[in-house]
């Protein structure tokens, strides 16, 4: 039952009631001095709000992101002032880059102590202004219902993003008459979600007259739940579809029109043919530099139609011929009836031809090696086959992240969760536990590197304490592999501080009461993956992979995407 009847409550209790009013049932947090009144109130709400005690506040922020990415609902963090708040910063910066709705609640010193360098006081509002969609400091209890309603509305609407609410201790303690009303818009915050008819007509005309149209899909398709509209549109126009890193899983990998991933370590055909297409329909993506490579030589021949909800993204990096300022779903829905049915076999054959080249030169050796050490790609492809492409893969950042993006065949939406814009090492494990809480019926597998794993491995403790059956695969090459690859290719093999002398990860997992095993031989790989997937509990595989393996294809930094290297 929503709690909105007038009732005299403390600010701390009002926080809990406001969370319930917004449909929150899971909170990732860590208690401390300035947030203790809120934690005291939470004690009485344990039956309605599941609080997950993380081992470090950064873990709470990434777990909230993982939760939000699979549920579409804002993930919530609850932490104390000072270091508790600053430890959230990496996750907040990650969330704004990748448009992830999270609401961070931070305790703050008493109103009278603000600005006095009080114990654990920090200017978290000042610190997070550049990395939040919105933030606000509550200094009076009466503000709580209105500010919470506004915070959740801002976090989840339009282009979603992180919001931070800082609450002074007195505002948690004082009592007031509680009443809650949800907010849909404010005077200065309105969102345009539907495109203009004239723009839709222009876009349809461009696509209908195109000889070589190409659809690029981003995270916006998943956020707006536009997967079905996208599929119908692509099929009607017989238009090839490629995805950005964060758009993966918006379009099924086995669909005949799916041509792979864009960008630096994306597939060969979609990169090369971006510079051959005559009309590009970009949906819910922002032409990140990892997608475009050198902007001066990016898709210069193409007329670009950009469907995008954030006006600041339109014409930011790439000039659009037609811009549909709208939600991805609304934009695609408007376009669909105006699109003509077409057959484009010649154009599709060009993709096939280049895909075959990549298959021969790169993919075959990566997923079906006959000898040598285990390859990262073969682990990912085998996992993909065993889970029928239906698991949620949560990647950390580095070579393994690209391998997980390239070689898992994503069949269901919201299945590839990774830190895209910020590239945050340490994201994987905590985001996986958040994803598992958000989607308990789905298999969740964290694929991490030996470097990133060691940045947040303490969250194994959270996974164990909460009894979450999160599966973890460490693709262990004893290197910070992506940096090593760059040093090999662009810095004359000078391996500057990229070797890791690792601990025994199996023993570490076991010390956290997480079952684990090490895999060193190809012959043991399949059975080990089976045991991991069969387990009803958390399980970790430390898989020793080829130490100096490189991820190809690759667009060298600053190069044109046409100059993508296959080897």
């Amino acid at each position, binding site marked *: 039952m929503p709690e909105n009847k007038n009732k005299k409550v403390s600010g701390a209790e009002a926080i809990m009631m406001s969370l319930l009013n917004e449909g929150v049932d899971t909170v990732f947090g860590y208690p401390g001095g300035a947030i203790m009144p809120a934690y005291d109130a939470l004690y009485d709400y344990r039956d309605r709000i599941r609080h997950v005690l993380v081992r470090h506040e950064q873990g709470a922020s990434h777990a909230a992101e993982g939760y939000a990415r699979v549920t579409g609902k804002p993930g919530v963090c609850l932490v104390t002032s000072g270091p508790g708040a600053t430890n959230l910063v990496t996750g907040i910066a990650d969330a704004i880059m990748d448009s992830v709705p999270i609401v961070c609640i931070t305790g703050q010193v008493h109103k009278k102590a603000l600005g006095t360098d009080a114990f654990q006081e920090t200017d978290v509002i000042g610190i997070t202004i550049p990395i939040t969609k919105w933030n606000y400091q509550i200094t009076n209890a009466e503000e709580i219902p209105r500010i919470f309603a506004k915070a959740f509305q801002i976090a989840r609407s339009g282009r979603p993003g992180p919001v931070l609410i800082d609450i002074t201790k007195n505002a948690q303690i004082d009592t007031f008459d509680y009443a809650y009303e949800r907010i849909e818009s404010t005077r*200065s915050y309105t969102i345009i979600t539907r495109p203009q008819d004239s723009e839709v007509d222009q876009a349809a005309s461009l696509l209908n007259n195109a000889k070589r149209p190409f659809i690029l899909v981003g995270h916006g398709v998943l956020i707006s739940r536009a997967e079905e509209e996208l599929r119908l549109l692509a099929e009607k126009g017989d238009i090839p579809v490629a995805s950005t890193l964060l758009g993966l899983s918006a379009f099924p990998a086995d669909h005949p029109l799916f041509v792979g991933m864009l960008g630096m370590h994306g597939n060969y055909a979609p990169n090369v043919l971006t510079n051959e297409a005559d009309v590009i329909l970009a949906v819910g993506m922002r032409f990140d530099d990892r997608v475009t490579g050198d902007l001066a030589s990016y898709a210069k021949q193409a007329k670009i139609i950009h469907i995008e909800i954030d*006006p600041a993204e339109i014409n*930011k990096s790439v000039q659009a011929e037609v811009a549909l300022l709208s939600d991805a779903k609304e934009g695609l829905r408007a376009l669909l009836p105006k699109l003509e049915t077409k057959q484009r076999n010649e154009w599709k054959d060009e993709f096939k031809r280049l895909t075959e080249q990549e298959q021969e030169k790169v993919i075959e050796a990566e997923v079906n090696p006959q000898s040598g050490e285990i390859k990262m790609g073969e682990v990912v492809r085998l996992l993909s086959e065993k889970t029928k492409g239906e698991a949620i893969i949560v990647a950390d950042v580095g070579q393994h992240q690209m391998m997980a993006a390239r070689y898992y065949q994503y069949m269901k939406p919201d299945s590839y969760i990774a830190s895209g814009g910020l590239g945050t090492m340490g994201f994987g494990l905590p985001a996986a536990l958040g994803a598992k809480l958000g989607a308990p019926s789905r298999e969740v597998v964290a694929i991490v590197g030996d470097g990133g794993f060691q940045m947040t491995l303490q969250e194994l403790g959270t996974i164990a304490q909460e009894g979450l059956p999160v599966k973890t695969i460490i693709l262990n090459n004893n290197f910070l592999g992506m940096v090593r690859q760059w040093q090999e290719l662009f810095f004359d093999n000078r391996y500057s501080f990229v070797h890791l002398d690792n601990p025994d990860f199996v023993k570490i997992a076991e010390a956290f009461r997480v079952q684990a095993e090490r895999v060193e031989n190809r012959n043991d790989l399949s059975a080990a993956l089976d045991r991991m997937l069969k387990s009803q509990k958390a399980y970790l595989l430390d898989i020793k992979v080829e130490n100096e393996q490189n991820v190809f294809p690759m667009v060298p930094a600053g190069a044109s995407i046409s100059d993508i290297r296959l080897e």
Partner: protein
Amino acid sequence: MPSEKLHTLSVFSENSPGVLHRLTVIFTRRKLNIESLTVSETERKGVSRFTIVVRSDEDTILKVAKQLERIIEVLQVNVFSNGELLFKEIALYRVAADSPAKRSEIEEVARRYGAQMLNLSPSAVVLEKTGSEDDVNSLYLLLEPFGIREFVRSGRIAIAKNHG
């Protein structure tokens, strides 16, 4: 390099704490220096108007404007070049005047250049000038030989020549 020139941004926002900080970080990220800034409440209750003058190229300033508009509290951002605007600033000059002769010379300059005499003391006079940046600068040069003891100027305030 695209050519840089002065742009004036009129930013309308909710009048709430922290908005100035939110605006300035957008400029700071791109290492743009704010040449002048004035803030006041407008004819609409609770709405503030920031007049911000920045030297930059046009492409950058249009992107900045969109990023400013993304701030939750911001209602609207308009970008103007000098030709599209009516704009003024105000300046105060404390000028040394230790003899009646000097004082009358300064009074003459003030009269010819439309400056107001605000205050007289045995050693100095205080003048006020409202006008364009160039007007303020010209008067400064004229007064300089007398000895300028103190000088302060406001930021630009501006409205568009054509509305809507």
